[in-house]
């Protein structure tokens, strides 16, 4: 009867007894939704400045860094009279293929203007391949600064468009150093203004951790 032994684990977990933490971890998704981590990587949004101009300048650094090769960008000349973005160049074509995207967020790191960030939305499923390729019009935030909802996206599961975009960007400083905690180094966003830094680690904490890590490394003979 050895094959029934495996069910003991299931039953124990279901009943919530004798587990490692002593509590049941299974939730009734989708009826019941867990809050997502602050730096969750979901589908992208293309942000705009507070004055409505697009942040994307079509530099293709996101496409260049993308390990899944899922981003296609082409730049074009801004009309000097009616520019789409500040400067000479704007993102004329911007497409992300979500059949390929692995949500690694390297595009967000590469972006020199914080134009692309990832929201916490992950509940979207397509019935054909062309839907999976988000175009610029679909990725760009609307005039209210909120992402646009596609018919195949489920926003019911606790996705808050007012809060759940560009979280990752707000968590770190441009240099990636925790010492810059609390120093705002990013541009304002349409509809939100300059977002507050995400709370969390402090520089003292980070400094102590870094020192501990260094010490551990020295113990192992350094490099």
């Amino acid at each position, binding site marked *: 009867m050895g094959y029934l032994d495996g069910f003991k684990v299931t039953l124990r977990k279901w009943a919530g007894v004798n587990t490692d933490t002593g509590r049941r971890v299974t939730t009734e998704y989708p009826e019941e939704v867990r809050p997502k981590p602050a730096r969750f990587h979901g589908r992208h949004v293309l942000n705009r400045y507070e004055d409505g101009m697009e942040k994307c*300048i*079509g*530099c*293709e*650094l996101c*496409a*260049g860094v993308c390990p899944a090769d899922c981003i296609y960008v*082409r*730049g*074009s*000349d801004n009309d000097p009279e009616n520019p789409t973005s500040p*400067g*000479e*160049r704007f993102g*004329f074509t911007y497409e992300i293929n979500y059949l390929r995207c692995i949500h690694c967020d390297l595009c967000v790191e590469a972006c*020199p*203007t914080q134009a692309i960030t990832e929201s916490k939305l992950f509940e979207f499923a397509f019935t054909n391949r062309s839907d999976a390729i988000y175009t610029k019009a679909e990725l760009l935030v609307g005039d209210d600064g909120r992402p646009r909802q596609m018919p195949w996206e489920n926003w019911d599961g606790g996705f808050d468009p007012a809060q759940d975009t560009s979280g990752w960007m707000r968590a770190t400083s441009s240099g990636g150093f925790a010492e810059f905690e609390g120093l705002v180094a990013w541009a304002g966003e349409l509809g939100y203004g300059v977002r507050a830094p995400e709370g969390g680690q402090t520089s003292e904490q980070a400094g102590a951790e870094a020192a501990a890590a260094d010490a551990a490394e020295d113990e192992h003979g350094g490099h």
Partner: protein
Amino acid sequence: MRDIEITEPVEITLNGELVTAQNGELLIDACERNGSYIPRFCYHSRLTPVGMCRMCLVEVDTGRGPALQPSCMIPVSDGMGVDTESDGVAKAQDGVLEFLLANHPLDCPVCDKGGECPLQDQAYAYGPGESRFVEEKRHNEKPIPISELVLLDRERCILCDRCTRFADEVAGDPLIHFIHRGSHTEVNTFPGEPFASYFSGNTVQICPVGALTASPYRFKARPWDLEETESTCTRCSVGCRVVVESSRNKVLRLQGVDSDPVNWSWLCDKGRFGFQAGNSGNRLSRPLQRCESGELSEVGWNTALDSAASVISAAIAGRGPQSVAVLGGARLTNESAYSWAKLAKDVIGTDNVDCQLGDGLPAELVLGLPGASIDEVCEPGATVLYLGPDAKEELPILYLRLRHAADFDGVKIVEVGPTLTGLSPYAAESVTAVPGETPSVLAALLDGTSEHVEASALLRNASDLKVVIGRANLAEDEAITVQTADLIRESVPGATFLPALRRANVRGALEAGLAPGFLPGGATLAGTLPTGWQSMPAERGGGAAEILEDAANGRVDVLILLGSDPLRDFPDRSLARRALAGAKTVISIDPFVNASAEQADLVLAASMFSESAGTTTSLEGRVTALNQLVTPPGTARDDWMIAVDLADRLGADLGVETSADDLAEEMAGFSDAHVVLGDGAPVGDGVMLDISGRDLLTSAEVEVPPANAYSLRLVLNRTMYDKGTLLEESESSAGLAGESVVKLSAADAAPLGVDGSTQVKVTSEHGSVTVAATIDSRVPKGVAVMHHALGDVDAGTLLVHGDPVCDVRVEVS
């Protein structure tokens, strides 16, 4: 850095190791050759060193202790000690980069150069990493167009002097220069004078930052998007080596490659930006057939080829093979040209084949004259007799080479032609000869009776005369050129010739046998049957003019236009018009529906530059590779595939097993007019044909009517930008063609009352046109110059093919 042969070796100590260098060469080159790359911005091996940027500072010790010296200004000497990696050098590089970046905007994400930028790369490799400057950077309006094709961003400029040196030294168009002083120094054009140089694109290529960008490539892609392949430019017959770069199956950019025997990394703007024609929305993607309503409509290849084969078979069965004529083929690769020569001459059996359109040199001259290469013509100390068309307009890179040879290498150029040209300022002497009188003027120069004493002495004393021969005037009969060549060979037996051909692969097409009376490899119909051939034409056919004459008189059943557009290109315009109307069936094989194809019954969609692989032969007989990078639009296909399919339908096999290489091998198997470059072999500088033992030359005597006092002799020549299909279809060059004008000398203009933009009526025996007249100091008295295929005015209606010269009257209308 160029590869050189070390003739005077000296030993220097480079970073502690003894290495060998050429005495007197620049230290920067010697170090690079010996594996120590010195960063640089202003130094370019094809330009005079100036030591502007100070990036190449190294510690040089010539016995007095190490000192920082710019290695691009220091010639190597024996026993020199060099340290390129010392702390002092690193600190100097750090400092130089910090200064260069003090005002650099760092807008790399939007800059076209970002990703392939020497400043970016070297800032990463040698720079300090952080700047100490907190001050506001310099601001300028960005970008400002300095010509139709080039944009200038002065904020990014690091004042390296490369573009300005190029414009002055290489192109001879010193239209950009430093202006202002001190920290306000900037590169700019003179007020109101754009950088209207035929070579402006080169400044974009050599700019070490993104200060100069080309409008056709602006924001089209980033460097990491690009796929590239080496190839050969096909916009004229010089055969410049290029790198073709594409992204997403679209060619986006051409860059010149430093090929020592050919283009020295330079390209003309027509070649550099002409690839845009391939991306034109008007490209033909499927065959077109004229349907019953009279419109050209798309059909499948089977239908199109079946119908082409059936009209050809019907013509052969009817009036015989000679009722089929093939016109054109200079656009093709060598392989395609050979396949068409074999199709026409072997399978169909017609000799009415000509790859030139009455505007080139006779095949006998191109194939039979003892050849000189571009390098031989530009050899230091050589004497060159220039009899070709205006090289600056038609063969721009040959012009750059000749210009350099005259300016730097002591080459003496004697120019004899109907007008002064772009080359005249660099010629030792320019002798103008009224159309028709070139042979007599030249005879006088060669026997010493001419009043042009200097030119005469130069030509008579030249031990090894090099002659550039071409058609400077399309309104002059080609027999006069034959007569001229004949005269030179008689008077100067050792003279060698460089044919100044216009179209890309005329030489290759002629070598492949696309000329009346010729078989591949310069063999004549009297020769033996080439290997792999079943038959050859029984009798000699006619050239372009005879073919068109026959067509006009209803004697041509099938006229095949192989990438040619006689309505635009054949000098005698009315003959071309009558011929297209008179031919029973016209089949055009072309990437575009050009003016002639609009009148065709069947248009087969052909591939273009960078869409098909093969080889091409330049005017000097250099076989270089053409590589494929993108796919042709729709179902358009290579010309050789069309030939093979047609042959198949006519019941013959052209012997292609797998690819066009089979054709190349077959041709190379029996003739010295082709070489197989080998699969995957590096493109390199190509291979010069080694041709010997041809006896093809003929002589001609032309009776030129004496000039009369009431008329002017017409010179019909070409400009770089005209209304040709490929230029019109190139987005950036479409607007660059000038207006049609007639150019007169001041002496002829004065009595007519012409003062700059007067409308005049130009009348010849055969027609008349109304056109604006301008005064041009390069036009001698007694001559009127008009340009071919320019604007709406059709200068071609003034002349009739076969007339030795064309006399016109100019009256104010």
